[in-house]
């Protein structure tokens, strides 16, 4: 009897080609009311002397069936998984969902490069108003109304008598009026010049202005600071050159040029900006404004330096951009190039 079941069951197991079919075989023979299970249940009716031998016999059959079931189940599961995986295969070379990719404007990338260097050196980064009054833009910066230096900065005057700032330097004044020394800041923002537009001139462009004020600040500190910036921007080969120049709000004043191993072209000295030691008249103008606001005079007798440069020029030199007008035409084919590392 039992042996017949074993033979039948093993054949049925071998023939089962689905998990459901296998389950049916399992139920038929070793389920709760399966044929083999029933025989085990019927053991109690046998006389005790037969029971042991018969029990061992049936259990052996059952174990053989269970083992076959397990083995067959494993085989069928693997086959089912293989089939599923095969059916799920897709062509991974087809493009994905074209989600948008954004990017930063190249001018702001250059600003970020610059401010990152200065933030590491402990500078605060600030912005300020683009519409200025004559006092902050010129007078307080030691450029009185009659000064020929005004010819250097052709100005967009506004109908109400104010002007579009010609440089970020008025923020030197505004910041010092509101804060006390010692201080280290860089200013970012747009500036305006009444100039015809061409490949290297724009009526609107950007500046980065730096100002450090404290006790015993020297021109050597200024040169070292510009050198740190140059190394941060252009790598360890960068060198800085100072040459005498004139900005009414500095004394002494200088222009600075940077040289570095340019992987994209010829290495040469490139004029990047102007700088100098803060003119005592600027400190005086700040203290006068502070006094008018009821604040203590805290700038006279301090020393400091200031510098200014144009991110457009840096971007043009660094990335080989031929025309300043590219920056504000916002052509997606231009802007889209300034993503990721621009090494």
């Amino acid at each position, binding site marked *: 009897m039992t042996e017949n079941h074993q033979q039948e069951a093993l054949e049925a197991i071998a023939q089962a080609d689905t998990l459901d079919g296998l389950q049916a075989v399992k139920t038929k023979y070793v389920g709760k009311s399966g044929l083999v299970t029933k025989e085990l249940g019927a053991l109690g009716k046998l006389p005790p002397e037969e029971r042991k031998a018969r029990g061992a016999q049936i259990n052996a059959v059952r174990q053989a069936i269970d083992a076959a079931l397990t083995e067959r189940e494993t085989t069928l599961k693997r086959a089912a998984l293989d089939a599923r995986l095969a059916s799920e295969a897709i062509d991974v070379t087809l493009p994905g969902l074209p989600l948008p990719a954004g990017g930063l404007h190249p001018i702001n990338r250059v600003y970020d490069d610059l401010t990152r260097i200065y933030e590491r050196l402990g500078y605060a980064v600030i912005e300020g108003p683009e519409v200025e009054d004559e006092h902050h833009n010129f007078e307080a910066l030691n450029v009185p109304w009659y000064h020929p230096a005004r010819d250097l900065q052709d100005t967009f005057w506004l109908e*109400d008598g104010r002007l579009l700032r010609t440089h970020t330097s008025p923020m030197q004044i505004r910041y010092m009026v509101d804060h006390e020394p010692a201080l280290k800041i860089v200013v970012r923002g747009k500036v305006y010049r009444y100039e015809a537009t061409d490949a290297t001139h724009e009526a609107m462009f950007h500046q980065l202005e730096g100002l450090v004020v404290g006790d015993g600040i020297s021109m050597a500190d200024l040169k070292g600071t510009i050198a740190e910036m140059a190394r941060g921007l252009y790598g360890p080969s960068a060198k800085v050159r100072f040459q005498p120049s004139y900005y009414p709000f500095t004394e002494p004043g200088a222009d600075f040029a940077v040289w570095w191993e340019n992987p994209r072209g010829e290495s040469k000295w490139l004029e990047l900006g102007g700088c100098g030691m803060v003119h005592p008249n600027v400190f005086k103008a700040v203290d006068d404004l502070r006094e008018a606001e009821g604040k203590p005079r805290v700038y006279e007798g301090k020393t400091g330096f200031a510098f200014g440069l144009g991110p457009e020029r840096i971007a043009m030199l660094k990335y080989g951009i031929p025309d300043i007008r590219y920056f504000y035409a916002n052509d997606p084919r231009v802007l889209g190039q300034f993503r990721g590392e621009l090494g």
Partner: protein
Amino acid sequence: MKLPYSWLQELVPNLPPVTELEPIFANLGLPLEGIEDTPTPPEGVLMSVITRAEAMEGTQLARLTLDTGPHGERVIATGAPGAASLPAGTVVALVTPGTTLGDTEYGIRTLQGVESWGMAASAKELNIGESSAGILTFPAGTAKAGTPMHELWAADQVLDIEITPNRADALSALGVARDLAAFLKLELKQPPAGPAPHGDGEIRVSLPLKGLTIERDPSKKLRFGCDHFAARTVGGVQNGPSPLWMQRRLSLAGMRPIDLIVDASNYVMLELGQPTALYDRRDVTGDQILVAFGLRQGEEVADLMGGTHTVGPEDLLILDGRERGVSTVAEAFANAGQPQPGAGVLGIAGIMGGDHGRVRADTTDVVIESAHFDPVLLRRTSTRLGLKTDAVYRYERGVDPLLSPKAADRVAGLLAECGGGQIEPGATVVGEPEIPGEITASADAIRALLGMTIDTAEMRAILGRLGCVVTGEGDTLQVMPPSWRVDMNIWQDVAEEVARLHGYAELPETLPTLRIHESNIGASAANDSRQNLRRTLAGLGFQEVVTYTFTSDDEAQKARAEAPGVRLRNPMTVDRTALRTALYPSLLRAALAHPKGERVLLAEQGRIFPQSGEAERLGLLMRGPLAPNTHQGGVAGGYSAFRGLLETLAASQGAALEIRQLRGEPVPSALHPGIAGEVVWNGKAIGWIGALHPEIAQEFGLKGETFILEIALPLPGRAWGFRDPSRAPVAWRDLAVIAPKNVSYGEVAALLRAEAGEGLESVEPFDVYTGDQIPAGARSVAVRLVFRGAKTLTDAEVDPVMDRLIGAVRAQGWSIREK
């Protein structure tokens, strides 16, 4: 400023070769903008004399008959402007046939029927100057016909020197030479001095009073009108061409030679830096010169160039003895409006000579004026009259106040030497010139300011070489600057001179060591948040743009933006007449740079200038799908996608975002009235979001929908604190609210939130329905309400809340959609 190398070399005999000069000039703060080679002209260029000049009828050409010397009389045709009216005797540089200039060989050409024997060259063609406008001409008598030009014209190099406004002292050959000699420690050879005067001159001169003010504004006080005036007279001058060496130097320096009298004045200005004015003595009535403020409010003064200028009481004039001068502005104001008839204005002081007094063809006796005028006053007049001359350019920067008599002598000497003039022995010199005062400087302070080690002795030596008189003991430097260094006023100026001559290259590189004052802490916060926002937006797929701040009335009107109130006084182009009052018109313009139908996502942080004042804004724009269709379906754009991006932005900033429906109240004029919302960020209304009004889209030529947002920066923050996450499970209920269609989801959610109180963790809509199963004009919004408490919530706790919510909904006149 342009100067030929040979001139500088004459003053500094051991000047290094021109190839070595560039870094030297740069280190002096007089950078070279260029070095131009002016080779000697080729052999075939002959000085030729015009015997007849005539226009060729029916053409733009002129026919010149020339005496060419060895080649006899020849004819050329030229298209150079003004050639037909050149007087006979004028000398030109004739490029004879067979001569090569640059890459061009010149021959005989037939022009409009005239066989042109070579060409009369321009300065540019000969490479001896920039002017290509006309042919190079020399006054009659300059050279004998047929003289090869190269015999008269040596090769040279012209240095184009950039002079910053502070370096008035360097606006002359002598000034530049002085600096070079001091820097290179070389000998300086002074240019020849004119004959020194003996006794008083015949011209009587009266100057205005000192301490004048203008515009009745005491802060705008002038130091003086004119504080030094020298007059000399020369008789019997044979005016004609100046010697070729002088013409050559003037030409190379960019000035056009005219005649001896004019050229001598210009030459001395280039040589010494002192402008002079030369008058025909016949016009200096009564041998009297008055330097006075304009008598002739509103009257016109004719200048020697043929222009006229309306002078006012604040303009300093040179008058002759016929005029009753006034010497104070007060007097001039008092006289204003009382016309003073008669000629007599010899010139506008320091700016331009008058027609009266002008040197003419028959002038023989001249009065030389060499004076020092107030820079501020002259700059005002020159700016007001729009007259920028080489003279006023120097005066407004600062001419050496002591130079006047010396320059007058030099001009007189040149007129005698080159024009056979008889110099009157006496000279009139009046005024008390103000010279820069003594500066007290500390050598230690200079070293500290520069951060550079320089011996005190070297400082004294440097300053001495620059012409300063340095006294004082030890660390103290008592520095008396030379009269020409009007820019040296404070000890920091002394420090700059020391650094300049010692060499900026010697400056060490150090870093400031500072502990910043507490008032500066946190100053970067606004920039940090701008930066964070910019990067997040880029990560969300927005391309950052930077746009022009300018706008025009037309653009503002097309965009329905606030009319611009901040307007340019001097606009450059019609599309840039004012400052923008909103960001979105700039973004619309930027969107136009994208191909039609393409997805556009733009972001800008920028400043706007509405009536309420300058403000910072963030603008966003979206066009097209969020993801376009490809081989598979894309993701639609539209308001939902745009708003979704804003929600992600808010979530990334940890901000609570709410969009309030704008209905039955003014909608921002940029927006579609039905697709317009107010952006509420952390509880504060900061701007708007919606679809661009279709009429604006049409005006800008933007087809398809455009979604825009404009919000104020900086974004409002929020109070933040850490909260332990609750471990209790949530309880949820669904509720469908039927309300009129014009009730926004936002209003329904707000009501439920307000009524439910703290236990309500979230409200999310999962179905919005309009149709047959609910009344017309109504809409059903089904929401899932998620509650959470400190412990597991029971029905007994949640049910009363739900009853309260249902009651509140019904109290609004809305209803609940039963399942």
